[in-house]
């Protein structure tokens, strides 16, 4: 039994302009201790996936159908009380902007202590010890002193470390990280990524890493999902997906990465733009931008399974 099994998840937003289907039959599984990368452009449904999994969707968004099973438990049927037990204890989340995700008027030590105290009975000294050790594990020196700091006294990188410490403090089974390095400097990005990898490897926590930057996940993830307009258009083991993409969109994403060989040449970009979710073309949403599209693409392509990989395309790229 996998740790997390998402099956044909559909999330919709009922807006004045119509129903927006932000997630359309999204399925994936995540094994214990593994890292799953979800890659996609803005509006492809990456963050909605995270919020659906955490049951943090706000009106007018709601899960319309599909199932989320966590350790065999169907989360669609979970009560608010059950969610309070799970969140922060078994499933934790790291948010995009560390400037915004910490309470500005609480000392960071108190915020971390709260996460511990809400889920377990522990003495003041035990909690402090746990907070110190979590801060130490994310690379914060002198944690006993830092505990007394307010968020505004810390740099962006430090704050994101605190947010990560808050996520790992109860040793959850799953951490959902929603673009946790996007708001940081490139150098800090590298450090956080490296430390995240160490933490996951050493603790056996599974990680769902959401990003728009495919180069960030290629060394981190075991498995990769590529999303476009609310659908998972390709997924599989990370080296296979990046090494031999089958979907033209994945190919385009990889080709638009700068690398040493392309120095001095014009960088590739996929023509066109992501369609608005309210006015999706019928069939494959990528077809209007795709060089391989044909009349067949006006029907929604079903998932093709090929070994460990899945993709939704009528004209997949051949193995090179």
């Amino acid at each position, binding site marked *: 039994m996998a740790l997390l099994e998402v099956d044909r998840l559909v999330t919709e937003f009922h807006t004045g302009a119509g129903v927006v289907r932000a997630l359309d039959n999204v399925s994936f599984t995540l094994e214990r201790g593994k890292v799953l990368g979800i890659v996609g452009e803005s509006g492809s449904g990456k963050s909605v996936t995270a919020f659906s999994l955490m049951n943090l969707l706000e009106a007018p968004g709601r899960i319309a159908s599909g199932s989320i099973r966590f350790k065999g438990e169907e989360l669609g049927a979970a009560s608010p009380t059950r969610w309070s037990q799970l969140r922060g204890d078994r499933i934790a*989340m790291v948010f995009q*902007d560390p400037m915004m995700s910490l309470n500005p008027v609480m000392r960071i030590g108190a915020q971390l202590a709260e996460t511990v105290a809400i889920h377990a009975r522990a003495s003041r000294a035990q909690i402090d010890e746990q907070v110190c050790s979590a801060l*130490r594990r994310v690379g914060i020196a002198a944690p006993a002193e830092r505990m007394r700091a307010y968020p505004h006294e810390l740099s962006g990188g430090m704050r994101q470390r605190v947010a990560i410490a808050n996520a790992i403090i109860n040793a959850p089974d799953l951490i959902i990280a929603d673009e946790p390095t996007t708001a940081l400097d490139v150098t800090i990005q590298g450090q956080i990524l490296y*430390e995240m990898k160490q933490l996951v490897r050493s603790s056996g926590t599974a990680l769902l890493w959401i990003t728009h930057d495919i180069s960030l996940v290629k060394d981190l993830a075991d498995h990769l999902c590529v999303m476009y307009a609310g659908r998972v258009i390709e997924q599989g083991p990370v080296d296979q997906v990046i090494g031999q993409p089958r979907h033209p969109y994945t190919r385009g994403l990889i080709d638009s990465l700068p690398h040493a060989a392309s120095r001095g040449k014009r960088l590739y970009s996929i023509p066109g733009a992501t369609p608005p979710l309210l006015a999706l073309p019928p069939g494959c949403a990528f077809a209007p931008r795709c060089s391989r599209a044909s009349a067949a693409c006006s029907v929604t392509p079903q998932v093709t399974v090929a070994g460990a990989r899945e993709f939704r395309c009528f004209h997949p790229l051949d193995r090179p």
Partner: protein
Amino acid sequence: MPQPSPNTMDMNATAVSGTDSATATLPPPESPWRLTARRFGRRLPGVIAAAFLMLLVLLALAAPLIAPQDPYDLAQVTIVENERAPGALSDDGRTTFLLGTDGAGRDMASAILYGLRISLGIGVASALVALAVGTVVGLTAAYFGGKVDAVLMRIVDVQLSLPTILVALVLLAVLGQGVDKTLLALVLVQWATFARNVRGSAMVERNKEYIEAAMGQGLPAHRLMLRHMLPNCMAPLVVTTTNQMANAITLEATMSFLGIGLPQTEPSLGLLISNGFDYVLSHQYWISVFPGLALVLLVVSISVVGDQLRVVLNPKLDT
């Protein structure tokens, strides 16, 4: 001395970890309350007003100890000594009526000290109860939103659309006089102001990511509201509370002056002014004017403190 962190094993990160994760000697963190107190201390008018206000509070608290007589102990008050001018001596020559006596022979200075006690007590108590009620309503509306918000805020709208004095008058006319009834009336006309105020600031906080993050920690709703949203709404709330205290004192004085607030046995400053009103035209100004002066000083000092708090708590105004 900072110890090398066990996590600085990645070599490519050492160049930046010097600025990011090494121990810098920071000044000890200052709590928001202490910071506010320090900034408040930099501005003289508020400090003077606060000191004066504290003096008034001390006088009110210590009234039974420092007042020359208990103005409501019939054994100490003699009708013979009525309407004495300020500075007059009592018949036995042992006490000076610093601010004169009223129509029943009470020492005005003592009556004002006791009146201050009642006015201040009722004003502060009603503002605090209204604060508690309004905060719960405002936070609930902001947190749950949707229909809960709509229903609660319409009730607030109705409450605020009625003139305060009218509501208070009607209530007291129906309920009758009494400290508890006056308190109830004051809370009823004030809670909606707090509710709207709290809801406004809480809505802003509600949409910030740290609330989502706190939800992701698995915190229950009441904890999110009280420990996360409320402390971030404190600044405007402190100012509103101060202003509402001044309002409550004025309103209570108004009602007592009109004879519908407190009973004669619990004379607040408003009631003292009212009692002396008949004597003003016969040139015995002190019976009305001194309690009035005390009331003005009390309300003005609270207002000045509140005004300065508003400036100090808003970095955009504090230059």
